[in-house]
Protein backbone atom coordinates (compact mmCIF):
# COMPACT_ATOMS: atom_id res chain seq x y z
CA UNK A 1 0.00 0.00 0.00
CA UNK A 2 1.22 3.44 -0.94
CA UNK A 3 2.36 5.63 2.00
CA UNK A 4 1.72 9.14 0.72
CA UNK A 5 -0.61 10.67 -1.83
CA UNK A 6 -1.35 14.08 -3.27
CA UNK A 7 -5.09 13.42 -3.15
CA UNK A 8 -7.08 10.62 -1.55
CA UNK A 9 -10.60 10.08 -2.90
CA UNK A 10 -12.97 8.03 -0.77
CA UNK A 11 -15.54 6.09 -2.77
CA UNK A 12 -15.28 3.94 -5.90
CA UNK A 13 -18.58 4.85 -7.50
CA UNK A 14 -19.16 7.02 -10.53
CA UNK A 15 -18.33 10.21 -8.59
CA UNK A 16 -15.02 9.07 -7.11
CA UNK A 17 -13.90 7.49 -10.38
CA UNK A 18 -14.84 10.57 -12.37
CA UNK A 19 -13.08 12.90 -9.89
CA UNK A 20 -9.95 10.73 -10.01
CA UNK A 21 -9.92 10.73 -13.81
CA UNK A 22 -10.49 14.47 -14.12
CA UNK A 23 -7.79 15.34 -11.57
CA UNK A 24 -5.30 13.03 -13.29
CA UNK A 25 -6.19 14.44 -16.69
CA UNK A 26 -5.42 17.91 -15.36
CA UNK A 27 -1.95 16.70 -14.42
CA UNK A 28 -2.28 15.85 -10.73
CA UNK A 29 0.12 13.03 -9.80
CA UNK A 30 -0.11 10.49 -7.05
CA UNK A 31 -3.90 10.22 -6.73
CA UNK A 32 -5.35 7.38 -4.67
CA UNK A 33 -8.93 6.12 -4.89
CA UNK A 34 -10.17 4.03 -1.95
CA UNK A 35 -13.18 1.75 -2.20
CA UNK A 36 -14.38 -0.36 0.71
CA UNK A 37 -15.75 -3.13 -1.54
CA UNK A 38 -15.65 -3.31 -5.36
CA UNK A 39 -16.19 -0.51 -7.89
CA UNK A 40 -19.89 0.46 -8.21
CA UNK A 41 -20.77 -1.65 -5.17
CA UNK A 42 -22.74 1.19 -3.57
CA UNK A 43 -25.42 3.46 -4.95
CA UNK A 44 -23.87 3.65 -8.44
CA UNK A 45 -24.31 -0.04 -9.15
CA UNK A 46 -27.70 -0.21 -7.47
CA UNK A 47 -29.39 2.70 -9.20
CA UNK A 48 -31.98 2.89 -11.96
CA UNK A 49 -29.28 4.15 -14.36
CA UNK A 50 -31.34 6.93 -15.91
CA UNK A 51 -29.64 9.87 -17.59
CA UNK A 52 -31.95 12.85 -17.93
CA UNK A 53 -31.62 16.51 -18.77
CA UNK A 54 -35.22 17.44 -18.01
CA UNK A 55 -34.71 19.47 -14.86
CA UNK A 56 -36.47 22.44 -13.34
CA UNK A 57 -33.56 24.73 -12.43
CA UNK A 58 -30.99 26.24 -14.76
CA UNK A 59 -28.07 24.90 -12.76
CA UNK A 60 -29.36 21.34 -12.77
CA UNK A 61 -30.14 21.54 -16.49
CA UNK A 62 -26.57 22.68 -17.18
CA UNK A 63 -24.98 20.02 -14.96
CA UNK A 64 -27.16 17.34 -16.52
CA UNK A 65 -26.51 18.49 -20.09
CA UNK A 66 -22.75 18.60 -19.58
CA UNK A 67 -22.92 15.07 -18.17
CA UNK A 68 -25.21 13.74 -20.88
CA UNK A 69 -23.00 15.23 -23.60
CA UNK A 70 -20.00 13.52 -22.02
CA UNK A 71 -21.73 10.14 -21.79
CA UNK A 72 -22.48 10.42 -25.53
CA UNK A 73 -18.78 10.35 -26.29
CA UNK A 74 -17.53 8.52 -23.16
CA UNK A 75 -16.44 5.32 -24.93
CA UNK A 76 -14.08 7.33 -27.17
CA UNK A 77 -13.06 9.99 -24.64
CA UNK A 78 -12.20 7.41 -21.99
CA UNK A 79 -10.80 5.01 -24.59
CA UNK A 80 -12.99 2.24 -23.20
CA UNK A 81 -12.60 -1.08 -24.97
CA UNK A 82 -16.10 -2.18 -24.00
CA UNK A 83 -19.32 -0.15 -24.06
CA UNK A 84 -21.03 1.96 -21.39
CA UNK A 85 -24.32 1.00 -23.15
CA UNK A 86 -25.66 4.55 -23.25
CA UNK A 87 -28.99 4.23 -25.02
CA UNK A 88 -30.43 7.62 -25.89
CA UNK A 89 -33.98 6.52 -26.44
CA UNK A 90 -35.53 9.23 -24.36
CA UNK A 91 -37.14 9.96 -21.04
CA UNK A 92 -40.90 10.19 -20.90
CA UNK A 93 -41.99 12.17 -17.84
CA UNK A 94 -45.68 11.96 -16.97
CA UNK A 95 -47.77 14.55 -15.16
CA UNK A 96 -50.83 13.57 -13.15
CA UNK A 97 -52.12 16.93 -11.93
CA UNK A 98 -52.65 20.33 -13.46
CA UNK A 99 -50.06 21.76 -11.09
CA UNK A 100 -47.53 19.27 -12.36
CA UNK A 101 -48.53 20.03 -15.95
CA UNK A 102 -47.99 23.77 -15.37
CA UNK A 103 -44.55 22.98 -13.95
CA UNK A 104 -43.78 20.87 -17.04
CA UNK A 105 -44.60 23.85 -19.29
CA UNK A 106 -42.13 26.02 -17.37
CA UNK A 107 -39.51 23.27 -17.32
CA UNK A 108 -39.61 22.68 -21.08
CA UNK A 109 -39.28 26.42 -21.72
CA UNK A 110 -36.23 26.58 -19.45
CA UNK A 111 -34.72 23.39 -20.90
CA UNK A 112 -35.16 24.58 -24.49
CA UNK A 113 -33.52 27.91 -23.66
CA UNK A 114 -30.45 25.94 -22.53
CA UNK A 115 -30.28 23.78 -25.64
CA UNK A 116 -32.02 20.71 -24.21
CA UNK A 117 -34.39 19.37 -26.90
CA UNK A 118 -37.33 18.46 -24.66
CA UNK A 119 -40.94 18.69 -25.79
CA UNK A 120 -44.29 18.97 -24.09
CA UNK A 121 -46.54 16.15 -25.29
CA UNK A 122 -50.23 15.41 -25.18
CA UNK A 123 -51.19 11.99 -23.91
CA UNK A 124 -51.91 10.90 -27.50
CA UNK A 125 -48.38 11.90 -28.48
CA UNK A 126 -47.04 10.06 -25.44
CA UNK A 127 -48.82 6.93 -26.65
CA UNK A 128 -47.02 7.20 -29.96
CA UNK A 129 -43.80 6.72 -28.01
CA UNK A 130 -45.13 4.02 -25.65
CA UNK A 131 -48.24 2.58 -27.36
CA UNK A 132 -49.33 0.46 -24.40
CA UNK A 133 -49.16 3.35 -21.89
CA UNK A 134 -52.32 3.54 -19.79
CA UNK A 135 -53.03 7.27 -19.72
CA UNK A 136 -55.85 7.05 -17.17
CA UNK A 137 -55.28 9.67 -14.49
CA UNK A 138 -52.50 11.36 -16.44
CA UNK A 139 -52.55 14.92 -17.75
CA UNK A 140 -49.57 15.41 -20.04
CA UNK A 141 -45.99 14.35 -20.66
CA UNK A 142 -42.61 15.76 -21.54
CA UNK A 143 -40.08 13.91 -23.62
CA UNK A 144 -36.42 14.44 -24.38
CA UNK A 145 -35.01 12.11 -26.99
CA UNK A 146 -31.43 12.79 -25.91
CA UNK A 147 -32.09 11.43 -22.43
CA UNK A 148 -31.76 7.72 -21.79
CA UNK A 149 -30.03 5.15 -19.65
CA UNK A 150 -26.66 3.42 -19.45
CA UNK A 151 -24.83 0.64 -17.68
CA UNK A 152 -23.48 2.15 -14.43
CA UNK A 153 -20.93 -0.62 -13.91
CA UNK A 154 -19.39 -0.06 -17.33
CA UNK A 155 -19.49 3.74 -16.98
CA UNK A 156 -17.62 3.57 -13.67
CA UNK A 157 -15.16 1.00 -15.01
CA UNK A 158 -14.52 3.21 -18.04
CA UNK A 159 -13.57 6.12 -15.77
CA UNK A 160 -11.53 3.88 -13.46
CA UNK A 161 -9.56 2.31 -16.33
CA UNK A 162 -8.83 5.71 -17.86
CA UNK A 163 -7.79 7.04 -14.45
CA UNK A 164 -5.44 4.10 -13.88
CA UNK A 165 -3.81 4.66 -17.27
CA UNK A 166 -3.10 8.22 -16.07
CA UNK A 167 -1.42 6.84 -12.95
CA UNK A 168 -4.26 6.83 -10.40
CA UNK A 169 -3.93 4.02 -7.86
CA UNK A 170 -7.18 2.30 -7.02
CA UNK A 171 -7.38 0.23 -3.84
CA UNK A 172 -10.47 -1.95 -3.67
CA UNK A 173 -11.66 -3.72 -0.51
CA UNK A 174 -9.88 -0.98 1.41
CA UNK A 175 -12.07 0.79 3.92
CA UNK A 176 -11.31 4.17 5.44
CA UNK A 177 -11.46 3.89 9.23
CA UNK A 178 -10.32 7.38 10.21
CA UNK A 179 -9.02 10.69 8.96
CA UNK A 180 -6.00 12.41 10.47
CA UNK A 181 -6.25 16.14 11.13
CA UNK A 182 -3.74 18.53 12.65
CA UNK A 183 -4.68 22.12 13.48
CA UNK A 184 -7.66 22.04 11.17
CA UNK A 185 -5.70 20.61 8.25
CA UNK A 186 -6.05 17.21 6.62
CA UNK A 187 -2.93 15.10 7.21
CA UNK A 188 -3.87 11.61 6.17
CA UNK A 189 -6.32 8.72 6.17
CA UNK A 190 -6.36 5.48 8.13
CA UNK A 191 -7.54 2.43 6.24
CA UNK A 192 -7.95 -1.28 6.86
CA UNK A 193 -4.78 -1.77 4.77
CA UNK A 194 -2.62 0.92 6.42
CA UNK A 195 -2.26 4.69 6.65
CA UNK A 196 -1.74 7.15 3.80
CA UNK A 197 -0.34 10.64 4.40
CA UNK A 198 -2.11 13.30 2.34
CA UNK A 199 -3.19 16.92 2.52
CA UNK A 200 -6.32 16.49 0.43
CA UNK A 201 -9.25 14.13 1.00
CA UNK A 202 -12.33 14.04 -1.20
CA UNK A 203 -15.46 12.56 0.33
CA UNK A 204 -17.31 10.79 -2.47
CA UNK A 205 -18.67 8.02 -0.28
CA UNK A 206 -22.26 8.12 -1.54
CA UNK A 207 -24.67 6.58 0.96
CA UNK A 208 -21.95 6.55 3.61
CA UNK A 209 -20.75 10.14 3.14
CA UNK A 210 -22.04 11.33 6.52
CA UNK A 211 -19.99 8.61 8.24
CA UNK A 212 -16.86 9.94 6.53
CA UNK A 213 -17.93 13.41 7.71
CA UNK A 214 -18.07 12.16 11.30
CA UNK A 215 -14.41 11.11 11.01
CA UNK A 216 -13.50 14.80 10.84
CA UNK A 217 -16.17 15.73 13.43
CA UNK A 218 -18.28 17.30 10.73
CA UNK A 219 -22.03 16.91 11.12
CA UNK A 220 -23.14 16.94 7.47
CA UNK A 221 -26.82 17.64 6.73
CA UNK A 222 -27.20 14.22 5.12
CA UNK A 223 -29.13 11.05 5.67
CA UNK A 224 -29.37 7.90 3.60
CA UNK A 225 -32.69 6.61 2.39
CA UNK A 226 -33.21 3.11 1.05
CA UNK A 227 -34.69 2.90 -2.42
CA UNK A 228 -35.59 -0.39 -4.01
CA UNK A 229 -35.57 -1.71 -7.54
CA UNK A 230 -36.70 -4.89 -9.20
CA UNK A 231 -35.85 -6.42 -12.54
CA UNK A 232 -37.77 -8.81 -14.77
CA UNK A 233 -36.34 -11.60 -16.81
CA UNK A 234 -34.98 -10.51 -20.23
CA UNK A 235 -37.55 -10.05 -22.96
CA UNK A 236 -37.61 -8.63 -26.47
CA UNK A 237 -37.43 -4.83 -26.36
CA UNK A 238 -40.87 -3.30 -25.87
CA UNK A 239 -39.95 -0.17 -23.92
CA UNK A 240 -37.48 2.26 -25.42
CA UNK A 241 -37.58 5.35 -23.18
CA UNK A 242 -37.31 5.61 -19.44
CA UNK A 243 -40.88 6.17 -18.23
CA UNK A 244 -41.13 8.23 -15.08
CA UNK A 245 -43.79 9.81 -12.93
CA UNK A 246 -43.08 12.04 -9.95
CA UNK A 247 -46.57 11.78 -8.52
CA UNK A 248 -46.81 8.00 -9.00
CA UNK A 249 -43.32 7.84 -7.48
CA UNK A 250 -41.91 5.46 -10.05
CA UNK A 251 -39.57 4.99 -12.97
CA UNK A 252 -39.21 2.10 -15.36
CA UNK A 253 -36.79 1.26 -18.16
CA UNK A 254 -35.73 -1.74 -20.21
CA UNK A 255 -32.00 -2.40 -20.30
CA UNK A 256 -30.38 -3.48 -23.61
CA UNK A 257 -30.16 -7.09 -22.36
CA UNK A 258 -33.97 -7.11 -22.14
CA UNK A 259 -34.71 -6.96 -18.42
CA UNK A 260 -37.13 -4.29 -17.28
CA UNK A 261 -35.84 -2.32 -14.28
CA UNK A 262 -38.21 -0.32 -12.12
CA UNK A 263 -38.01 1.47 -8.83
CA UNK A 264 -39.63 3.78 -6.34
CA UNK A 265 -38.79 5.25 -2.96
CA UNK A 266 -40.50 5.81 0.34
CA UNK A 267 -39.58 8.86 2.39
CA UNK A 268 -40.76 7.15 5.58
CA UNK A 269 -37.99 4.58 5.35
CA UNK A 270 -35.96 4.16 8.52
CA UNK A 271 -32.66 6.02 8.17
CA UNK A 272 -30.44 3.18 9.26
CA UNK A 273 -28.39 2.29 6.16
CA UNK A 274 -30.38 -0.88 5.51
CA UNK A 275 -30.28 -2.09 1.91
CA UNK A 276 -32.38 -5.19 2.36
CA UNK A 277 -35.43 -5.93 0.20
CA UNK A 278 -39.01 -5.65 1.38
CA UNK A 279 -42.25 -7.31 0.26
CA UNK A 280 -44.02 -3.98 0.61
CA UNK A 281 -41.93 -2.59 -2.23
CA UNK A 282 -42.68 -5.61 -4.37
CA UNK A 283 -46.40 -5.13 -3.79
CA UNK A 284 -46.47 -1.34 -4.37
CA UNK A 285 -44.11 -1.40 -7.32
CA UNK A 286 -45.90 -4.14 -9.25
CA UNK A 287 -49.31 -2.57 -8.54
CA UNK A 288 -48.14 0.82 -9.81
CA UNK A 289 -46.26 -0.37 -12.87
CA UNK A 290 -48.87 -2.82 -14.14
CA UNK A 291 -51.50 -0.08 -14.00
CA UNK A 292 -49.32 2.29 -16.01
CA UNK A 293 -47.75 -0.29 -18.34
CA UNK A 294 -50.25 -3.18 -18.45
CA UNK A 295 -48.26 -5.66 -20.60
CA UNK A 296 -45.81 -5.98 -17.70
CA UNK A 297 -48.50 -8.03 -15.91
CA UNK A 298 -47.17 -11.02 -17.83
CA UNK A 299 -43.51 -10.36 -17.12
CA UNK A 300 -41.74 -12.58 -14.62
CA UNK A 301 -39.59 -11.05 -11.91
CA UNK A 302 -35.99 -12.11 -11.50
CA UNK A 303 -34.89 -10.28 -8.38
CA UNK A 304 -35.06 -7.09 -6.35
CA UNK A 305 -32.47 -5.11 -4.44
CA UNK A 306 -31.99 -1.96 -2.39
CA UNK A 307 -29.54 0.92 -2.40
CA UNK A 308 -29.05 4.25 -0.67
CA UNK A 309 -29.99 7.72 -1.82
CA UNK A 310 -27.74 10.17 0.03
CA UNK A 311 -30.25 12.91 0.81
CA UNK A 312 -29.74 16.61 1.54
CA UNK A 313 -32.49 18.92 2.86
CA UNK A 314 -32.96 20.49 -0.59
CA UNK A 315 -32.24 17.31 -2.54
CA UNK A 316 -29.27 18.89 -4.29
CA UNK A 317 -25.67 17.72 -4.08
CA UNK A 318 -23.04 19.36 -1.91
CA UNK A 319 -19.95 20.26 -3.92
CA UNK A 320 -16.87 22.05 -2.62
CA UNK A 321 -14.40 22.59 0.17
CA UNK A 322 -15.22 22.77 3.87
CA UNK A 323 -14.29 26.12 5.42
CA UNK A 324 -13.09 24.83 8.78
CA UNK A 325 -11.09 21.81 7.54
CA UNK A 326 -8.34 22.66 5.09
CA UNK A 327 -8.00 20.00 2.42
CA UNK A 328 -11.39 18.31 2.97
CA UNK A 329 -13.70 18.33 -0.04
CA UNK A 330 -17.28 17.15 -0.46
CA UNK A 331 -18.93 15.55 -3.47
CA UNK A 332 -21.93 14.13 -1.67
CA UNK A 333 -25.70 14.26 -1.23
CA UNK A 334 -26.87 13.57 -4.77
CA UNK A 335 -30.31 12.65 -3.46
CA UNK A 336 -30.78 10.10 -6.22
CA UNK A 337 -29.06 11.61 -9.23
CA UNK A 338 -25.37 10.96 -8.66
CA UNK A 339 -24.90 8.73 -11.69
CA UNK A 340 -26.39 11.15 -14.18
CA UNK A 341 -24.31 14.01 -12.72
CA UNK A 342 -21.12 11.89 -12.66
CA UNK A 343 -19.17 13.51 -15.51
CA UNK A 344 -19.94 17.02 -14.23
CA UNK A 345 -19.05 15.98 -10.67
CA UNK A 346 -15.59 14.90 -11.79
CA UNK A 347 -14.88 17.97 -13.86
CA UNK A 348 -16.26 20.50 -11.37
CA UNK A 349 -14.61 18.91 -8.34
CA UNK A 350 -11.27 18.82 -10.15
CA UNK A 351 -11.70 22.51 -10.97
CA UNK A 352 -12.60 23.33 -7.36
CA UNK A 353 -9.63 21.41 -5.92
CA UNK A 354 -7.22 23.03 -8.40
CA UNK A 355 -8.82 26.43 -7.76
CA UNK A 356 -9.70 26.89 -11.41
CA UNK A 357 -12.77 28.70 -12.59
CA UNK A 358 -15.70 26.27 -12.70
CA UNK A 359 -17.18 25.37 -16.10
CA UNK A 360 -20.62 25.74 -14.50
CA UNK A 361 -21.02 28.14 -11.55
CA UNK A 362 -21.88 25.92 -8.59
CA UNK A 363 -21.03 28.16 -5.62
CA UNK A 364 -24.59 27.80 -4.44
CA UNK A 365 -24.05 24.04 -3.99
CA UNK A 366 -21.47 24.67 -1.25
CA UNK A 367 -22.11 23.25 2.22
CA UNK A 368 -22.49 26.83 3.50
CA UNK A 369 -25.93 27.10 1.90
CA UNK A 370 -27.37 25.15 4.80
CA UNK A 371 -25.60 27.40 7.30
CA UNK A 372 -27.00 30.50 5.63
CA UNK A 373 -30.40 28.96 4.95
CA UNK A 374 -30.06 29.41 1.19
CA UNK A 375 -31.57 26.17 0.05
CA UNK A 376 -32.25 25.53 -3.62
CA UNK A 377 -35.67 24.52 -4.80
CA UNK A 378 -35.72 21.88 -7.55
CA UNK A 379 -39.30 21.04 -8.53
CA UNK A 380 -38.54 17.88 -10.51
CA UNK A 381 -37.16 15.12 -8.34
CA UNK A 382 -38.47 11.68 -7.41
Amino acid at each position, binding site marked *: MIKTAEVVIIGGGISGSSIAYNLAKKGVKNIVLLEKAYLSSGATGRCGAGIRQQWGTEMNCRIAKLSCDFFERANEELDYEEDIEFKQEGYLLLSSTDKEHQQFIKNVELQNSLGIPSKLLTLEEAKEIVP*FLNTEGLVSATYCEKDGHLNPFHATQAYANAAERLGVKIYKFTEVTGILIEQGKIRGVKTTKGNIATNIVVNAAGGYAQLIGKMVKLDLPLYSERHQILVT*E*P*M*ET*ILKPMVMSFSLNMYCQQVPH*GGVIMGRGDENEPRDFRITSSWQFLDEMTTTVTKLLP*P*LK*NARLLRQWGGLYNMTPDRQPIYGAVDEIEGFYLAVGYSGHGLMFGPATGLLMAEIILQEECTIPIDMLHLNRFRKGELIFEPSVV
Partner: protein
Amino acid sequence: MRIQEHPILSFERGEKVFFTYNGKKLEGYEGETIAAALHAAGIKVLSHSIEHLKPRGFYCAIGNCSSCFMEVNGEANVRVCVEPLKEGMVVNTQIGKGDLL
Protein backbone atom coordinates in the same frame (compact mmCIF):
# COMPACT_ATOMS: atom_id res chain seq x y z
CA MET B 1 -38.58 -43.54 -23.07
CA ARG B 2 -40.52 -43.52 -19.83
CA ILE B 3 -39.68 -45.07 -16.50
CA GLN B 4 -42.39 -47.62 -15.82
CA GLU B 5 -41.27 -48.84 -12.45
CA HIS B 6 -39.26 -47.06 -9.82
CA PRO B 7 -38.07 -48.39 -6.44
CA ILE B 8 -39.32 -45.33 -4.51
CA LEU B 9 -41.66 -43.29 -6.68
CA SER B 10 -44.99 -44.37 -8.02
CA PHE B 11 -46.51 -42.85 -11.13
CA GLU B 12 -50.17 -42.09 -11.40
CA ARG B 13 -50.52 -41.48 -15.08
CA GLY B 14 -53.48 -39.44 -16.27
CA GLU B 15 -55.47 -39.67 -19.48
CA LYS B 16 -53.64 -39.73 -22.76
CA VAL B 17 -53.76 -36.29 -24.37
CA PHE B 18 -52.64 -34.83 -27.68
CA PHE B 19 -50.73 -31.59 -28.21
CA THR B 20 -48.74 -30.02 -31.01
CA TYR B 21 -45.06 -29.30 -31.03
CA ASN B 22 -43.97 -26.97 -33.85
CA GLY B 23 -47.06 -28.07 -35.76
CA LYS B 24 -46.44 -31.78 -35.20
CA LYS B 25 -49.05 -33.81 -33.31
CA LEU B 26 -47.61 -35.56 -30.26
CA GLU B 27 -49.07 -37.47 -27.34
CA GLY B 28 -48.46 -37.35 -23.65
CA TYR B 29 -50.31 -37.91 -20.39
CA GLU B 30 -52.32 -35.47 -18.40
CA GLY B 31 -50.54 -34.55 -15.18
CA GLU B 32 -47.03 -34.79 -16.54
CA THR B 33 -45.11 -31.71 -17.53
CA ILE B 34 -44.79 -30.50 -21.10
CA ALA B 35 -41.05 -31.16 -20.88
CA ALA B 36 -41.66 -34.77 -19.78
CA ALA B 37 -43.95 -35.38 -22.75
CA LEU B 38 -41.45 -33.80 -25.15
CA HIS B 39 -38.62 -35.80 -23.66
CA ALA B 40 -40.60 -39.02 -24.01
CA ALA B 41 -41.15 -38.12 -27.65
CA GLY B 42 -37.38 -37.79 -28.10
CA ILE B 43 -37.33 -33.99 -28.24
CA LYS B 44 -34.41 -32.85 -26.17
CA VAL B 45 -33.66 -29.37 -27.51
CA LEU B 46 -36.12 -27.04 -25.79
CA SER B 47 -34.59 -23.59 -26.29
CA HIS B 48 -31.46 -21.82 -27.49
CA SER B 49 -29.02 -19.62 -25.65
CA ILE B 50 -29.67 -15.93 -26.21
CA GLU B 51 -26.26 -14.82 -27.41
CA HIS B 52 -24.71 -17.78 -29.24
CA LEU B 53 -27.94 -19.63 -30.06
CA LYS B 54 -26.61 -22.90 -28.68
CA PRO B 55 -29.16 -25.63 -27.97
CA ARG B 56 -30.49 -25.83 -24.41
CA GLY B 57 -32.30 -28.82 -22.97
CA PHE B 58 -33.90 -30.16 -19.84
CA TYR B 59 -31.73 -28.96 -16.97
CA CYS B 60 -32.95 -27.91 -13.52
CA ALA B 61 -36.45 -29.40 -13.87
CA ILE B 62 -37.77 -27.16 -11.09
CA GLY B 63 -38.47 -23.92 -12.96
CA ASN B 64 -35.33 -22.11 -11.94
CA CYS B 65 -32.78 -22.20 -14.73
CA SER B 66 -34.57 -20.68 -17.76
CA SER B 67 -33.18 -23.45 -19.96
CA CYS B 68 -36.62 -24.69 -21.10
CA PHE B 69 -38.40 -21.50 -22.16
CA MET B 70 -40.91 -22.24 -24.91
CA GLU B 71 -43.93 -20.57 -26.38
CA VAL B 72 -47.10 -22.27 -25.13
CA ASN B 73 -50.54 -21.28 -26.45
CA GLY B 74 -48.96 -18.05 -27.66
CA GLU B 75 -47.45 -17.14 -24.30
CA ALA B 76 -43.69 -16.58 -24.29
CA ASN B 77 -41.13 -17.73 -21.71
CA VAL B 78 -43.18 -20.64 -20.36
CA ARG B 79 -41.07 -22.96 -18.22
CA VAL B 80 -42.16 -26.26 -19.74
CA CYS B 81 -40.35 -28.26 -17.05
CA VAL B 82 -42.98 -27.24 -14.50
CA GLU B 83 -45.98 -26.53 -16.72
CA PRO B 84 -48.56 -29.37 -16.71
CA LEU B 85 -49.51 -30.78 -20.09
CA LYS B 86 -53.11 -30.30 -21.22
CA GLU B 87 -55.13 -31.54 -24.16
CA GLY B 88 -54.70 -29.44 -27.29
CA MET B 89 -51.75 -27.35 -26.12
CA VAL B 90 -49.81 -25.57 -28.83
CA VAL B 91 -46.13 -25.77 -27.94
CA ASN B 92 -43.60 -23.99 -30.13
CA THR B 93 -39.88 -23.37 -30.07
CA GLN B 94 -39.34 -19.77 -29.01
CA ILE B 95 -37.31 -17.45 -31.17
CA GLY B 96 -35.50 -14.74 -29.20
CA LYS B 97 -36.14 -13.57 -25.65
CA GLY B 98 -39.91 -13.70 -25.72
CA ASP B 99 -42.29 -10.94 -26.59
CA LEU B 100 -44.81 -9.56 -24.09
CA LEU B 101 -46.93 -7.79 -26.68
